[in-house]
């Protein structure tokens, strides 16, 4: 079982978490001004990274907070985590 470092609770078993998809995807300020292609890009297109990937997780059966995790998708190794709303630390690039 993966141990996921929650920025609030510390390392916790994977069972307590839900995956929340790719991190740092900002909703466009004015969706009405977007072309259909750009809107579809925002809604559906993701990086599908092979390697180091920033993603959202939610500690749903714990503190219930969303946060960000940087994980290597090829090895499942988690490099670190940081709170939602924070920028990705340089050390986790």
């Amino acid at each position, binding site marked *: 079982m993966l141990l996921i470092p929650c920025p*609030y*609770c510390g390392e916790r078993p994977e069972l*307590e978490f839900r995956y929340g998809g790719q991190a740092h995807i900002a909703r466009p300020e004015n969706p009405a001004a977007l072309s259909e292609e750009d809107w579809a890009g925002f809604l559906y297109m993701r990086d599908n990274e092979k390697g180091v990937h920033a993603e959202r997780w939610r500690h749903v*059966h*714990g*503190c*219930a*907070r969303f946060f960000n995790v940087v994980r290597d998708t090829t090895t499942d190794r988690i490099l670190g985590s940081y709170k939602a709303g924070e920028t990705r630390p340089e050390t986790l690039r």
Partner: protein
Amino acid sequence: MVERPARLPALPASVIGADGVTLSPAPDGARFVFRGPEGAAQAADEAWGTPLSRVACRATMAMGRAALWLGPDEWLLLAPGEEPETVAAQLAARLPGIGHALVDVSHRQTALILSGVLAETVLAGGNPLDLDIGAFPVGMCTRTLLGKSEIVLWRTGRETFHIEVWRSFAPYVCEFLREHMREFGG
């Protein structure tokens, strides 16, 4: 006047015993989920009687009342033996004009007490956390899972755990623990 329906317990009042571990229902009372920013938490420290823990996964207790940290702006307040309406009114009166959420969950949840030298072992049958006293000390509390049910687990003593569970999940949790107590004669 509208007659209030009687509140029936979710679990039978019986105690399940085994060699080295006992499962019993906890006394009923008032329960609240309190949410709010630091300012509201400071007001609640005074109003509740025991300061709300700002340290993650820790509970505080005073004068029979307890405050369990659930999230960075979320606490579970327990007042065994007290009337929810009275306590809610007292609290609300002491938090005027301060943005917060105080939700009465007295009827949503019930609680079990698991105690004995084998309490850790029995819980480990369905909970993935490290329950060793070093990793999960007395006073630590957290939402977590037991089998397929979400619980709030709180270590009130070296060999005693308080388990808060949603009412409709209580029979499941009770039977789940009983199943794991069977090998110790439960």
